């Protein structure tokens, strides 16, 4: 099978963001999605530190320390952008005004619980940022992650063993192996990568998967 690399995975997520959407891209892997938004679509990127209409990274030397994204990286604006304060920014999130957020994850459970902020390791310094707000706030919560841990264990699990970010909040999971919808009756495989059968995905994942008519 042909696992997706980080950029292929980002491109796969980007393909599903329709024209006109307002999207928040989580820090880290999800930020890559911005580089792969299909041409011809007008998509507005929200960053929780108070801006709608985030543009690409500035050219070297043109960075502005007052214009950054939630990952504290320098960004630019696109036409139509606006600034607002933090309470207004999270009002947008919590008030369900964002069409999509894309988050990384340590684990997603069969009911759509999300764990992405803390491994629960006793010496880890906890840090949550805006993840819990995004998880309950966005109309559609998309997760992108590697399907398996480095040890080969499925990150899609019966029940999260890491501390939760949000309960029953994930709508769809994009991994380097498959696209899977979280529905009230379980996990539906929307597609798998070239050369990966449903059965093999089922074996790697462990928890029960359903086959969609459209699944590869």
């Amino acid at each position, binding site marked *: 099978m042909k696992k997706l690399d980080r950029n292929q995975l980002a491109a796969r997520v980007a393909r599903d963001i329709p*024209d*006109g959407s*307002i999207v928040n891209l989580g820090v880290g892997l999800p930020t890559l999605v911005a580089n792969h938004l299909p041409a011809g679509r*007008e998509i*507005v990127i*929200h960053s929780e530190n108070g*801006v*709608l*209409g985030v543009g690409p990274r500035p050219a070297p030397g043109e960075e502005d320390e007052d214009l950054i994204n939630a990952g504290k990286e320098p960004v630019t*604006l696109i*036409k*139509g*952008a*606006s*600034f*607002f304060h933090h*309470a207004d920014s*999270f*009002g*947008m*999130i*919590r*008030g*369900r*005004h*964002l069409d999509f957020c894309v988050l990384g994850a340590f684990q997603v459970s069969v009911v759509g619980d999300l764990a992405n902020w803390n491994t629960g390791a006793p010496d880890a310094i906890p840090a949550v940022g805006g993840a819990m707000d995004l998880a309950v*706030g966005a109309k559609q919560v998309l997760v992108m992650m590697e399907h398996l841990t480095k040890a080969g264990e499925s990150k899609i699990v019966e029940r999260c063993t890491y501390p939760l970010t949000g309960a029953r909040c994930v709508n769809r999971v994009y991994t380097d192996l498959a696209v899977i919808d979280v529905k009230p009756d379980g996990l539906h495989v929307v597609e798998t990568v070239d050369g990966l059968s449903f059965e093999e995905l089922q074996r790697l994942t462990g928890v029960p998967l359903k086959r969609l008519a459209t699944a590869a």
Partner: protein
Amino acid sequence: MIDKLVASPQAAVADIPDGATIMLSGFGNAGMPVALIDALIAQGARELTIINNNAGNGDTGLAALMKAKRVRKITCSFPRQPDSWHFDALYRAGEIELELVPQGTLAERIRAAGAGIGAFYTPTAYGTKLAEGKETRRIGDRDHVLEHPIHADYALVKADRADRWGNLVYRKTARNFGPIMAAAAKCTVVQVRETVELGALDPEAIVTPGIFVQRVVRVH
């Protein structure tokens, strides 16, 4: 491409059904979306629940909607005015339901809807008739009343300028309830004096980001 510009007030309110809950911006006549209300009257929707600070003045705008008997219930802070005769007549005839809310609680309940707050405790109205039957709680050394958000199906808002994304700026005290109502409704329809090119509004000075707006109509 995002283009929220709609050709006419008529087109902008065409889908509002009977029984809808509608927020109307404005404080008295300042900021009242009269062109959209006129289109709503012509459109014919009935049994509406209206949220506004007042209950109409004179014979235009909200007062005309009242006069046409399209309003089943109004939630407001200050219905009684020297020229609120259409509301007064309906109220005295028992033909309209009134939910009276202190103005700051009205604003905060609308704001809570837009910001996804489930409920909040406010000191306003504690110990008064307007808090009767409401849950209360002492927090610190003050007594509070529990208040819930006010959501709406539509908000009809008047702003000054807009771009095709629905970014808005207002004019002076006509701003009033516009920004919070825009965020609290499923579908926000805005009438503006002027539409401008995307990028023409200063990002630092946009008051309502386009995320809260679904339709924009330029009114001449």
